């Protein structure tokens, strides 16, 4: 008989968590350093009830979404410009390639000096995390649009904006989307790093909550927040990027 696919992963998870719980309960490790899953769950429940977790998640998500939106909104036209104009590709395109390799947390000191310990500093970091990946992805996927599509469209009288909006961008969309996904991942990492290292006076996000956990020696809080960070990342993929990619692939028969 064949087991349903979820049985083994569930068994493994239950065994792992149960073993961990038992290991802490019998006192093999110090539960201040390694809290039991039940303690983490307890923190999770408490902070959910007192609203702390939701408000921190909201603060972080708002920064991420606004920053990502700005980064993508700037990155798409800049990437298109890089693809269209040779000298912009040789300047901005090369710069984007370089800055994409720069871990975006490196922007934090600069952001703090320019914007102070405020929302705008974090937004700047998120934008910098997003924008270069998007610029590169848009540039590459526009340059890789099949010339045949362009020739066909041009003979039908398409040119200028029409050609860009109706042919080039739709044709480049799969590449643009994977660039955005990468930009989102970069932005998410850099935002977490920034929130952990810097006290931002205008809002208490997930990173700050995690940092506070360390200062208070609350490892249940630290691990609880880490779990939430993982869940947010998974959810963004599960409810946004993956369905979009699936739809794109299915509708084009890729």
């Amino acid at each position, binding site marked *: 008989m064949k087991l349903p696919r979820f049985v083994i992963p569930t068994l493994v998870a239950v065994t792992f968590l149960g073993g961990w719980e038992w290991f802490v309960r019998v006192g093999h490790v110090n539960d201040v350093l390694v809290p039991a899953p039940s303690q983490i769950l307890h923190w999770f429940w408490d902070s959910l009830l007192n609203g702390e977790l939701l408000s921190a998640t909201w603060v972080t998500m708002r920064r991420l979404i606004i920053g990502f939106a700005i980064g993508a909104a700037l990155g798409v036209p800049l990437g298109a410009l890089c693809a269209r104009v040779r000298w912009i590709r040789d300047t901005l395109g090369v710069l984007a390639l370089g800055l994409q390799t720069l871990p975006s947390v490196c922007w934090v000191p600069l952001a703090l000096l320019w914007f102070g310990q405020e929302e705008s500093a974090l937004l700047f970091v998120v934008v910098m995390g997003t924008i270069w990946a998007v610029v590169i992805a848009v540039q590459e996927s526009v340059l890789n649009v099949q010339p*045949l599509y362009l020739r*066909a*469209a041009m*003979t*039908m*009288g398409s040119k200028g904006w029409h050609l860009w909006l109706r042919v080039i961008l739709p044709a480049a969309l799969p590449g643009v989307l994977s660039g955005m996904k990468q930009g989102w991942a970069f932005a998410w990492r850099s935002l977490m790093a920034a929130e952990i290292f810097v006290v931002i006076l205008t809002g208490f996000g997930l990173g700050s909550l995690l940092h506070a956990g360390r200062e208070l020696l609350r490892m249940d809080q630290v691990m609880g927040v880490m779990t939430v960070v993982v869940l947010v990342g998974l959810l963004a993929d599960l409810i946004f990027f993956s369905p979009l990619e699936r739809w794109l692939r299915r509708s*084009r*028969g890729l």
Partner: protein
Amino acid sequence: MNPASFKTHPSAALTLRNVTKRFNGAAGCVTALDDITLDVKEGEFLVLVGPSGCGKSTLLSLLAGLDQVDEGAIRLGEEPVRSPGRDRLVMFQQDALFPWLNTLENVMFGLRLKPDLTEAERLESARYYLSLVGLADKEKARPHELSGGMRQRVALARSLAPNPRVLLMDEPFSALDALTRDQLYRDIQDIFTKRKKTIVLVTHNIREAVCLGDRVVLLSPNPGRVRQIFDINLPRPRRINDPELASLAAEVTDALSSHLSRSQEGLA
């Protein structure tokens, strides 16, 4: 050239005068087309045939306005051809359908670029041409859901729908299997007789050229030149396996091989 000396034949849709095209490749400057002079009559089915490297696809690109001549001139009626335009639509070797649009939207693409039509007229026209190529029931299908032959038929509908003055076809049948191809030969001839379009087809398949063309222009390579023009006076619709057609095709093939061997002797 002196514009005053440019004489267009009154019944000519496309006029080519001393058209020369060169490419700069790794092996230096290559003359792809050398001094081509040709008239395509209004309502004529003209086929350009020749071995690979004879510049026939280059010539089609020039007619489409996707590429520019180095010397000479091309005119559509009285207008010089310099850029792509809706009056000369192209059917490519691959279907070139847009995968992000369904069948109907693909056919609508060119129609939407005609500002003088209402949306209802566009829809009516798109549906008419889809039914003309026998795909009225595939409106909602995406290109990847269609067979190669169906996709090429959609491409045909897409190039016919905006009602171009000239239809340019760049080996549109070469990637299809023999059965599908025969069906399309029938479809094309049917549409050609019904709609009285001017068509220029490029192919390396001589049998296909004789089957479809009113005139077959034989091009020879290195550099691409017009070698001979054959008038094909067989009644339509023609069948590709017709014996009379086969003997004409053999004649064209013989002419081609004699030109080729002569040019090889020239090289040796």
